[in-house]
């Protein structure tokens, strides 16, 4: 007889999650005085024909008596129970069903949840606040006081029939209203083109067609702004932004570029027949509403991008932008999550995916600014490698359309259009269906199936934004395909045809397979336990046909789908930044300023985050994000090298939105420089560097915002030319704005993330920033000028009325980087650090912290103390060398070199005419130990 059962499992020792809840509550100002005020238990729900003995077998499996106790009775205490909303993937439930079947038990349904119990000091209203704010997320979960009944079988009532949407004869206003109602995020001109197209066909579109066009033509997928025709306010008509970047890469003509701006990721080859694929993506909007799931699937998505260009993923990067951690709760707008909640969720999400899929999460950055409070930015990158790679040139007519990996559900519907709209207070509620939950284990198995099977398919792409509509739609370009939605494996019944076609359910790849290799792919899938479905074929007629139960629900030429979109015409007002009038700064207490900079969240140690990421797996991490005597000093770039190879790659990141607020063009140039100087500092060859661009901007339909974007692309191209470092891939995320319930729009600051990947010719000769040996001398390479606009000095002390200029490009930088690289290869450079946020003083302090050594600075690079210590002038490195090598080094590095002073063993950092600072005081400021 089928009945329902529930098992409550509690930890014997204090459950660490309770302390986590108490800490999170206190951080948000919700006082929970005693951790014992919170109790937590895991819930297992089962449905099946289970007798006493079966239940005993199950609890024997599920409860480890050394760790836990379990009970099949309903708890009598007061508590709140949380479980997933119907339709949200419950990964543990699938494992429960597998366990039951392995044990030979008849379980027909399974679900999991958790139970939170609060002590007497917490009343019902407060308990509900804690659950809503900290324990559960209403976007994916529901809860109830007392016991909860789980949903074992999510189902709906799908008609299987596409709805016809009449658009002929509708006025533009009516079309726009229809677009709003269906959240199509299409421009009025685009709606008109669609109307005309269907008028020509003599029929009305189906919902499947309209949704497909909306996804394919979305900002997220089509990059309308980067492809737009832009007229600037000086009357000049410009090449589109994407053309500018591509032209720049073409002009550089670097021999190591194998593929740029084509397909899912850029590809370079520095050494032998090994190629490196690189890609970075944003997952901003999903992370704003469901931080864990958003960041989690952001990582999963970018890994599939690399897999989708037939490279084996080897590392993950992440750059995160949040609102200030100390934002008062009442300053967080309605409908938005507190920055701390977002940060915790995002970091957990990145860690969960990277750790479980088994890739080292290495390079990254975390920055804080009030501009990110309601619109956090989550950049996730992936690096892959391959041997003897060639581009797949299919699909060919007759190839099968093969869908691999996870099943399709109602998750992630309309994600691409959701990302292309600005957010408001209701976004969290309406976006529920946009949230995806990742399953890294399924993606790990996909990697296992596909890496090494490159000869068995003719084309490959991942299912990302837009789901099958964009994956199959892109592959079918110029070829055509005919697919049957009934053949797509579903998580549960009841999906409408458009939902199957558009779902962004995670961990799916589409490959084109010739009929004679189908069996071999099936055998690999069977071996690894990956589901494979043959959903149709590529035809050769140039028409994309999608069927439901045999009846066409979509019939579009791939030409209209991909090229039918009218080029967007946009106009931009270019900014006019101050580049001539530099201003200085007055220092009251330079030592105190240095300590405040070191403890500023942008500069302070990120160790607590780094340790949550597995950065050791594969044994390839040679230079880690944390280095030095106590492995707590910051690194510049990271270096990865296969344990059995001598060569490696270095990864560096550049980001500086504060410079961007004053001068987006100079910012772009200097973040390219920052990314490159980071990897040069660890031992990369400055002549073998490739770049990725990721723009996160506000609404580009505002002319000034677009103007900042245009000049930022100018800055990127100018820097790329100057360094001979081509862009090979990029991604833009626009409309990063939030309309508060006050009606005001909050945009993120102009945020450009540059990722630089460089060739490391000798992984045994890498250099880190921590000071190595007392008695060595310290040199500053590069020039120091009063460039304070957007500086961290201004962030901690407040900016004066006349901010002056941001750091200007240094045209001599590349020549200096080349000489530095030769010095590193020769082995004379014992430590090297780039100078960035906080200027020279912060960089020197970080070297002391890393090495637990002191430094006596005798000479400063400027007579003005503020400039010498805190200006953020670009293109500078600090190097430590033995005194014996000094004359040789100076002979090879004439020009902008300042001999600063000497490394000492007294654990004191001293500057001329300032109170010496104990290195331990620097350590405490940097690591957040209260003074």
């Amino acid at each position, binding site marked *: 007889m089928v009945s329902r059962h529930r098992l409550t499992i509690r930890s014997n020792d204090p459950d660490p999650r309770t302390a986590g809840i108490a800490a999170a509550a206190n951080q948000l100002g919700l006082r929970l005085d005693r951790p014992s005020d919170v109790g937590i238990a895991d819930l297992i729900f089962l449905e099946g024909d289970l007798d006493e003995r079966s239940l005993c077998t199950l609890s024997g499996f599920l409860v*480890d008596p050394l760790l836990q106790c379990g009970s099949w009775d309903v708890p009598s205490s007061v508590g709140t129970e949380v479980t997933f909303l119907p339709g949200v993937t419950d990964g543990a439930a699938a494992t429960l069903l597998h366990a039951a079947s*392995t044990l030979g038990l008849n379980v027909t349904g399974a679900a999991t949840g958790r139970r939170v119990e609060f002590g007497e000091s917490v009343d019902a209203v407060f308990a509900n606040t804690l659950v809503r704010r900290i324990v559960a997320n209403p976007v994916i979960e529901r809860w109830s006081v007392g016991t909860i009944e789980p949903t074992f079988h999510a189902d709906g009532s799908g008609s299987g029939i596409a709805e016809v949407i009449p658009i002929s004869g509708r006025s533009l206003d009516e079309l726009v209203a229809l677009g709003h109602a269906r959240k199509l995020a299409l421009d009025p001109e685009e709606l008109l083109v669609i109307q005309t197209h269907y008028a020509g066909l003599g029929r009305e579109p189906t919902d499947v067609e309209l949704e497909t066009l909306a996804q394919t033509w979305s900002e997220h997928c089509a990059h309308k702004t980067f492809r737009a025709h832009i007229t600037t306010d000086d009357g000049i008509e410009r090449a589109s932004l994407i053309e500018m970047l591509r032209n720049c890469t073409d002009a550089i003509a670097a021999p190591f570029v194998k593929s740029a701006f084509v397909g899912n990721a850029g590809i370079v080859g520095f050494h032998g027949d090994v190629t490196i694929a690189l890609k970075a993506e944003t997952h901003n909007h999903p992370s704003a509403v469901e931080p864990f799931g958003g960041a989690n699937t952001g990582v999963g998505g970018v890994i599939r991008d690399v897999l989708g260009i037939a490279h084996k993923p080897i590392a993950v990067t992440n750059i995160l932008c949040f609102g200030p951690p100390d934002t008062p709760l009442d300053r967080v707008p309605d409908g938005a999550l507190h920055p701390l909640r977002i940060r915790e969720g995002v970091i957990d999400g990145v860690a969960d995916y990277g750790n479980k899929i*088994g890739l080292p999460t290495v390079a990254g950055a975390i920055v804080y600014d009030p501009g990110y409070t309601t619109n956090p930015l989550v950049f996730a990158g992936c690096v892959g490698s391959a041997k003897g790679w060639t581009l797949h040139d299919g699909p060919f007519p007759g190839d099968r359309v093969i869908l691999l990996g996870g099943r399709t559900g109602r998750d992630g519907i309309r994600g691409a259009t959701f990302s292309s709209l600005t957010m408001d207070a209701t976004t969290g509620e309406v976006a529920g269906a946009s949230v995806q939950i990742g399953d890294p284990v399924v993606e790990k198995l996909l990697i296992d199936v596909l890496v090494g099977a490159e000869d068995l398919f003719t084309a490959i792409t991942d299912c990302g934004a837009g789901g099958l509509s964009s994956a199959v739609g892109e592959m079918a370009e110029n070829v055509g395909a005919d697919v049957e939605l009934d053949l797509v494996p579903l998580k549960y019944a009841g999906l409408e045809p458009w939902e199957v076609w558009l779902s962004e359910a995670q961990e799916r790849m589409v490959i084109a397979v010739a009929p004679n290799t189908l069996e071999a792919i099936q055998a690999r899938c069977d071996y690894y336990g990956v589901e494979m479905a043959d959903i149709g074929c590529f035809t050769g007629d140039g028409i994309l046909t999608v069927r439901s139960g045999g009846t066409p629900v979509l019939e579009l030429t791939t030409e209209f789908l991909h090229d039918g979109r009218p080029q967007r015409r946009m106009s931009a007002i270019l900014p006019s930044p101050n580049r001539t009038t530099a201003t200085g700064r007055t220092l009251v207490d330079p030592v105190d300023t240095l300590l405040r900079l070191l403890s500023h969240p942008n500069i302070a140690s990120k160790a607590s985050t780094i340790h949550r990421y597995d950065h050791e797996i594969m*044994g390839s991490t*040679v230079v880690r994000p944390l280095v030095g005597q106590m492995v707590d000093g910051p690194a510049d770039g990271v270096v990865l090298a296969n344990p059995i190879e001598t060569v490696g790659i270095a990864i560096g990141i550049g980001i500086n939105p504060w410079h961007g607020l004053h001068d987006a063009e100079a910012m772009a140039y200097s973040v390219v420089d920052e990314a490159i100087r980071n990897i040069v500092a660890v031992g990369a060859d400055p002549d073998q560097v490739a770049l990725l661009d990721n723009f996160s901007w506000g609404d580009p339909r505002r002319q000034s915002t677009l103007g900042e974007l245009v000049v930022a692309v100018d800055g990127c191209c100018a820097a790329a030319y100057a360094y001979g470092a081509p862009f090979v891939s990029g991604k833009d995320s626009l409309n990063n704005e939030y309309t508060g319930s006050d009606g005001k729009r909050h945009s993120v600051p102009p945020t450009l993330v540059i990722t630089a990947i460089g060739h490391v010719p000798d992984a045994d000769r890498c250099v880190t920033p921590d000071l190595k040996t007392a008695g060595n001398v310290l040199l500053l390479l590069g020039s120091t000028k009063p460039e304070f606009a957007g500086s961290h000095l201004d962030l901690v002390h407040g900016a004066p009325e006349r901010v002056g200029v941001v750091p200007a490009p240094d045209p001599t930088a590349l020549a200096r980087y080349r000489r530095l690289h030769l010095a590193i290869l020769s082995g004379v450079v014992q430590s090297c650090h780039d100078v960035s946020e906080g200027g020279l003083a912060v960089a020197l302090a970080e070297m002391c912290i890393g090495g637990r050594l002191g430094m006596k600075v005798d000479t400063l690079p400027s007579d003005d103390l503020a400039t010498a210590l805190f200006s953020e002038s670009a293109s500078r490195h600090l190097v430590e060398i033995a005194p014996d090598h000094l004359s040789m080094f100076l002979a090879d590095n004439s020009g902008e070199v300042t001999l600063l002073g000497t490394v000492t063993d007294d654990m004191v950092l001293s500057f001329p005419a300032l109170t010496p600072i104990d290195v331990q005081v620097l350590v405490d400021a940097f690591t957040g130990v209260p003074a």
Partner: protein
Amino acid sequence: MIAPVALVIAGPGTNRDQDAALALQLAGANPRIVLATELIANPELLKEARLVVVAGGFSYGDALGAGRMLALDLVVGLGDALTDFVSLGRPLIGICNGFQVLTRTNLLPGALGHNAQGRFDCRWVVLEAQPESRCVWTKGIDQPIHCPIAHGEGRYVHPDPVALAANGQVALRYRSTNPNGSVADIAGVCNEAGNVLGLMPHPENHLLPRQHPQQPRRDGADNLGLRIFRNGVAVANEM
């Protein structure tokens, strides 16, 4: 001498199988990664193997508790084949998730709970092989081993750690900060016969001096995790 056949068992979500295979190769074995399902279908593979590694990772995504589902697969699927392998005295090692699996198969004592600090933690640790241990994998290792941990459920729990040590079953202890709240700083334990070792840290990620995080500040050549695999392979060669 012909390199002994070593199996690296992987389940769905195991992800340090290749790291373990490289360690075995550098230690002189002939490693082969085998999926649990394949091994269950063909338990004869165990008869040919002289050494077995249950590799680290997140089998089944740690759903329902780390290692539990893969342990159930192996216990139900392999029946006595794994215990037979062990009773022949052949060396078996469970690393991280593999340790979690082996405690659930009852080949090793104790259990592994969530880290005391409640979080996944990745950092380098210092391990000390216990000279009084009967473990064949750590025998004769008199210099500390440096290697990373990377786990969320590594808090070793045992009702009587003193008796366990007295019985020679505590093979490794943390000599850096105890990273997860393990009882008596225990990082690795062995069975009574000493041929089965389970440990949370990852010696397979310290095979070369270059992998040490304090390179070039310290050489680390005396602190390689490789020595554990060399010991295992030496025993396998005698089988």
